[in-house]
C-alpha cells in the first residue's frame, strides 16, 4: 500500500497541481509535499501526490522494473476522462 511510482513532471498548473507522465500515461498529481519540484524533474507519486523528488537515472530504472512486474496500472488506476479531455 505504500508503493510509490516515479513520474516526470510535464507542467505545473493552479493549486499546486502538476501534469505528470508515468510510462506514457498522463495523470494529475498534487505537489503539496514537494513544493520545490520543477518541470522536467522526476518525483515519487503515491495516492495522487508527489512525495519526493528523485534522481532521473533511478526513476527510469524503477519504471523499467515496475513495467516488467506489470503493477503500474494497479497503483495509479485508469487515466480518468477529465484528463483525456484536457
Amino acid at each position, binding site marked *: *500500500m*505504500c*508503493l*510509490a511510482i516515479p513520474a516526470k513532471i510535464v507542467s505545473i498548473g493552479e*493549486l499546486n497541481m502538476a501534469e505528470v507522465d508515468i510510462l506514457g500515461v498522463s495523470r494529475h*498529481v*498534487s505537489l*503539496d*509535499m*514537494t*513544493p520545490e519540484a520543477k518541470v522536467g524533474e522526476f518525483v*515519487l507519486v*503515491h*495516492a*495522487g*501526490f508527489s*512525495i*519526493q523528488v*528523485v*534522481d532521473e*537515472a*533511478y526513476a527510469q*530504472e*524503477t519504471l523499467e*522494473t515496475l513495467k516488467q512486474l506489470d503493477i503500474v496500472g494497479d*497503483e*495509479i*488506476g485508469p487515466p*480518468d476522462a477529465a484528463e483525456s479531455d484536457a
Partner: protein
Amino acid sequence: MDLNTGFRDPEVAKRLIDSIAATSRTPVKIMEVCGTHTVAIAKNGLREVMPDSITLLSGPGCPVCVTANRDIDTAIEFGRVPGVVLATFGDMMKVPGSYSSLAREKADGRDIRVVYSPLDALRIAADEPDKQVVFLGVGFETTAPTIASVIRQAKLQEVGNFSVHSVHKTVPEALRALVNDPEVKVNAFILPGHVSVIIGLEPYRFLASEFGVPSVITGFEPVDILQGIHMIVQQFESGRAEVEIAYKRSVAPEGNPAALAILEQVFEPADADWRGIGVIPGTGLAIREEYADLDAAKRFQIDPPEVKEIAGCQCGDVLRGVVLPFECRLFAKSCTPEHPIGPCMVSSEGSCAAYYRFTDYGRS
C-alpha cells in the same frame, strides 16, 4: 555499489548473498515492517537464499491487515447512512469486519466507491453536491499526509459534503510495542522505505539507543533488501546497534519537512487499535479540533455493532511474527486468496497471501 543502477542486477545480488553468508555467525531474527517488503521478499525467494543463521519474519507492515475489526465495522456503518458515498482505497474492500465487508455492502446496494487518491474522493464531493462523501482514511505516514492535504483543501474551499474517517497509524511506536512484547523475539528491523521518505530517521533512533536493535531503512528492489540485510548483519556481528539508511536515493535523514508540516497541521497523535497488538498509545492520527467539521465521526451519529473476532484466524499473531502464516491451522485449508478468512490473506500485501502465492510452505 552505485546506488542508481543495477539494483536488480543478479551479479550484485549474488555478491551480497555471499557476503551475508560469510559475515553472519550469530542467529538473528530480522523483521520487515512493510507489506511491499513482505511481497518482494517472498516473490524474489530471498528467504530461501539466507544462511541458516538468518530468519526473516514479517511484521505489522500492511495497513489493511492491522486495521481492527471495530474500525471496519465503523466504516461499514458510515456506508449505511442514507445519502452517503463511502470512498476507499481498493485494498479495504474485501477485508472482513465482524459481520460484513465493504465489498458485500456494495453488492447489497450501498454506494461504496474505490478511489486511487483522496483527491478523487474530494472530486466526487464537488461533482455530486447532493451526496455526503465519507473518505475512509487508512494507511501509515506515507499516505496520511495525502489525506491531510485533502482535508486542508476541503476546509479552504468550504466543501460542505466531504468528511474523513481517520484510522491512520504511525509506525515507530508500534515497533516499541513489539520489542517490549515478551512473545516477540526480534533482533533487528528492516524499516519501511516510503514511510521513511516522510518521517526520516530520527523517530526510529530509540530502537538502537534504548533497545540495542539494529535497524536499517531499506528500499524495495531485491538488491536494496539484500543490502539492508547486509548492513544489519554487519552491525550485529560487530556488536553495533544503529539506525542506518540503505535507501539513500529516496530517504533523507530529516524526512520530508513539507509533508510533516501538513500532517502536523491537520492531525494530532491519538491512541490506535492494532489488530493482534491492541491499543498502542500515540500511534493513531486524530483530526484536530480546527478541522472537526471534516471529521466523519463528528458529522454522523452511528452505532457500530458489538465486535466479533474471526474464529480460528491467527492473523493477529502472524502480524507480530509470533506465528508464521503456514503455522495457522486455517492456512491453505479453509483460508486461501480465493476464499480468504482473515485480513492477512485478503490483502495482496498480507503475509499469508505472500506466503501462499510465492512459496509452497504449508502445502507440501
